[in-house]
């Protein structure tokens, strides 16, 4: 439920603070952007300071980090991974490719705007975004979570028909199971 600062209950404040300070990231390294994740996580830029921690499976993760371009083939896997994650969940679009296709803007089999297929909460601009930019994006997501505004998952549930139509438009062989996430 989207709630502004005034109507937040005490439980909401505690829960949002915990959610803000503990982000389990599923880094979906599709493109070249995956190379910026190791320096973000390791000793030079140490994202664990902010409670950001890599997780190995979608079931345990909170944040889906889509790093780079998505071919229609990988989009299918990203949708499956996203739907396996547990609420509340967030998506960070990483790099220009998730915003407008980047250098793949006229490619025949990559998507251009990720937000048409899964709801993106925060975009990180750049090609490549440096680790500083990645951490800034995470901090911005933390701010949104604290205010209770990072509600992409609810948007996805409400507009599931629109998202499904968009997804089926680009994914020709749609033979995915129905997840009751």
């Amino acid at each position, binding site marked *: 439920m989207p709630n502004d600062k005034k109507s937040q209950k005490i439980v909401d404040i*505690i*829960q949002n*603070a*915990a*959610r803000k*300070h*503990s982000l*389990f990231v599923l880094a979906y390294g599709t493109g070249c952007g995956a190379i910026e994740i190791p320096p973000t996580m*390791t*000793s030079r830029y*140490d994202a*664990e*300071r902010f*409670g950001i*921690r*890599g*997780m*190995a*499976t*979608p*079931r*345990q993760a*909170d944040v889906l980090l889509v790093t780079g371009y998505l071919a229609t083939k990988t989009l299918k896997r990203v949708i499956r991974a996203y739907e*396996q*994650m*547990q*609420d*509340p969940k967030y998506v960070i679009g990483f790099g220009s490719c998730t915003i407008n296709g980047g250098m793949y803007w006229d490619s025949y089999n990559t998507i251009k705007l990720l937000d048409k297929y899964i709801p993106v909460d925060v975009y990180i601009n750049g090609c490549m975004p440096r680790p500083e930019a990645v951490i800034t994006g995470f901090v911005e997501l933390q701010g949104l979570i604290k205010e209770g505004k990072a509600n992409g998952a609810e948007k996805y549930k409400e507009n599931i028909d629109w998202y499904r139509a968009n997804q089926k438009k680009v994914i020709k062989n749609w033979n995915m199971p129905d997840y*009751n*996430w």
Partner: protein
Amino acid sequence: MDNSIWISILGFLATVVLAFTVGVFYGGFVRKITARIQNRIGPPVYQNFFDIVKLYSKKTAINHGWMQHLGPAFAITASVTSLMFIPVLNGQDWIWFENLNFKGDLIFLLYMMVFGSLGMALGAGQTGNPHSAIGVSRGLSQMVGYEIPWVLALVAIMMQAHTTSITGLLEYQNANGTWMMFESPLAFVAGLLAMLGMFHYAPFDVPFAPAELASGPASEFGGKYLALMMTSGSIFAFVKLVLFVDIFMGGASNLIMLVVKTFLLYMVPVLYGIVSPRYRTEQSIRYFWGWPTFIGVLGVLYVVFTR
């Protein structure tokens, strides 16, 4: 109904809360120490509290059947039950709670401490995830590895003190005025080496192996199931440390001594783990069946021939 049972229940709850708090803070310290050794700043020490609160406040938790519900429940049941049989403080009742000791509770604990892992194995088996199946088989194989030196160490000290109860061992150490780790050092070394495997830090994090197995048995557990598993793991870490302190290091007479002793003991697997890569499964088992078992057998023989 008299009041004593309610006081016991209050003491029981206080013990569980103490175990949970200390265990979670130890987890935070481990992450902080790991970070400092890797030249990072690291998360705050209360980071694991945030993680657990966040996981408990997840809105959905998918499950694949009854056994997956019961797996984490078995794990936390085993942790709390084991905690009930371990005297937290030596010589006095920890705030009116008399722990449920009886003759032979050390042997009972040997079984009880395995129960949680077996429950998790059943729960992970139902998820149908191949990573879980591999993780479970690796974890149970490794358990066969470290249980042998662990049992040998316990047999040695049980023969030394002629008792199979933890309070009996504590009384024996108090009466002799020396710790069991000095009285039968070979058993202590064998138990310490087995403890490296019980904590599942590297190089013995074979069943979890995030890089190759996607966290193994836990890979299909999300949300509240994972929160339950983290709670259970925190309590169980405290249980193992206090048990080790009780039987080898003479127990602790107050909370500060308890924290000092358990923390120093905890640093052994942690620091050894930070600087180590991961073993393969058969390397891990071979390790435990090598020197730790040999030292354990020597410890038993030492007790047999010197006593």
